[in-house]
């Protein structure tokens, strides 16, 4: 009796196994084919996307390097319709503007983010004036990050250039540019701070440290790579921005002598060359320099995050 039962069970599973095997066999060629088609399709799309990007960069760099030489880099533009001369003053202006803009925005943005995450974080869900304001500030940062940059330009023109009588100048442009990158820095720093594990904060507080000591001693060092990345990103943003500076910086091709000087950045110079002169090749050359700068920035970010990860991993 027992035997027959076990036998029939066996027979049953045996039949099932066979049918599954048959099923697998019958559609295996089809599944293989589907896999091949899917991969081929993805490969094609991926290649197309990368090719398009490389074409843009390759074209600009290739065209650009025809005009790039020491003279191009060290001579000022001569101005006028011909577009003759180099780009030395625009490089200097770009560097000044980056330093000024990031110098204004980074401390503000980092401190604001620390406040929002480490101190105002506890206010979530509470009522009262301050929590309300914090909530509004958060929402404001989110919104500003998505506002088109020309709006910041308009604002900068109205407030710094006109109302505050700073004129078309590095300082007007830097202030307007700082408004532009502030949300970038705040949000990236907030993210970096939030990514610091709660257990670090608890461990520090449990040792009898104040909240500030915890922020300074543990949270900030752990978030530093992210914060530095946010700063480097915003450097790239300033280098490649045109709209804001078009309406605040004035566009002089002369060497800036103070923060009240007018000037033009590399990106603006590309714009002026392409629109107002016949020197399209020089526009390409300037564009190539811009691309090289951006690539260098990205490489720096990669290098930094690699090194930090290695260090945290204990190597």
């Amino acid at each position, binding site marked *: 009796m027992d035997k027959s039962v076990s036998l029939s069970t066996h027979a049953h599973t045996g039949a099932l196994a066979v049918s599954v095997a048959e099923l697998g066999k019958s559609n295996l060629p089809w599944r293989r084919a589907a896999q091949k088609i899917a991969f081929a399709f993805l490969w094609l799309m991926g290649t197309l996307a990368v090719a398009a990007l490389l074409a843009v960069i390759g074209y600009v760099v290739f065209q650009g390097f025809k005009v790039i030489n020491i003279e191009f880099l060290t001579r000022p533009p001569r101005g006028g319709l011909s577009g003759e001369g180099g780009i030395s003053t625009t490089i200097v202006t770009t560097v000044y503007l980056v330093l000024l803009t990031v110098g204004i925005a980074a401390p503000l943005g980092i401190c604001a983010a620390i406040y929002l995450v480490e101190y105002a974080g*506890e206010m*979530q*869900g509470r009522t009262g004036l301050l929590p309300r304001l914090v909530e509004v500030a958060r929402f404001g940062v989110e919104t500003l990050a998505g506002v088109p940059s020309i709006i910041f330009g308009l604002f900068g023109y109205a407030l710094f250039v006109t109302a505050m009588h700073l004129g078309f100048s590095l300082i007007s442009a830097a202030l307007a540019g700082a408004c532009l990158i502030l949300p970038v820095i705040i949000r990236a720093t907030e993210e970096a701070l939030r990514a610091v*594990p709660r*257990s*670090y904060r*608890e*461990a*520090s*507080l*449990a*040792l*009898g*440290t*104040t909240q500030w*000591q915890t922020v300074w*001693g*543990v949270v900030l*060092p*752990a978030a530093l790579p992210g914060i530095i990345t946010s700063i480097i990103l915003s450097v790239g943003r300033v280098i490649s921005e045109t709209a804001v500076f078009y309406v605040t910086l004035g566009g002089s091709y002369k060497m800036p002598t103070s923060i009240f000087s007018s000037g033009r950045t590399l990106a603006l110079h590309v714009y002026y060359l392409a629109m107002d002169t016949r020197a399209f090749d020089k526009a390409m050359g300037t564009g190539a320099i811009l691309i090289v700068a951006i690539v260098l920035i990205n490489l720096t970010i990669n290098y930094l995050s690699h090194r930090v990860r290695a*260090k*945290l*991993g*204990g*190597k």
Partner: protein
Amino acid sequence: MQLPVKLEVRNYHLFYGNFRALKDVTICIPRNQITAIIGPSGCGKSTFLRTFNRMNELIPGVRVQGQVLMDGQDIFAMDPVELRQRVGMVFQRPNPFPKSIYDNVAYGPRAHGIRDRRRLDEIVERSLRDAALWDEVKDDLNKSALALSGGQQQRLCIARALAVQPEVILMDEPASALDPIATLRIEELIQTLKQRYTIVIVTHNMQQAARASDFTAFFMMDEQRAGLLVEYGPTRDLFTRPSDKRTEDYITGRFG
């Protein structure tokens, strides 16, 4: 029991929002003894432990009722920063800072104002020795703490807690993430520490409580899932002749 009392809890309740996590807990924890807290998951052991260094306050919406005294002083009247200096904690998961071994141990003393390099060296060495880690790490104190094994990391966390010279050490399942050998090392270590510290340790492991503690408190949940203290006494008594039926069921494995 005629032992001097270090921590005293009277009619203590704790609420997470409207949820009562601890209900009417009254207990006296003796000085320089190891007190184990056992009970089923979710009965409020961690919550209770975090009472003594007021870490629960960091969670929004937490309310407490009742009294908690350390050496007869109300801990809720103290500055929490000062309290945490006197009541150290080791967490369930090893949580060293992403810094060097040295900086991890020196973190607390530095925060409390010790700047002198020689003093710091002394403290770091003594703390690592006390935590039975010195011999393994003395040659590379500048190595990242994250490169240590889990058991070493947990001993580093103990060293870090010892470095601020607390009076009480709270441990929340300090060995739950470790293998049996590392667990035994931590248990031995705890035995040697009790001469100088009052230790309160949460554990899931009945054998651990039985072999490594002097007193045991058994917590359980009531129908509303509020944690309450069922039985408390010398560990040997509690495990050999529990006075409460629920304790007996729990320690013999018939429950939870």
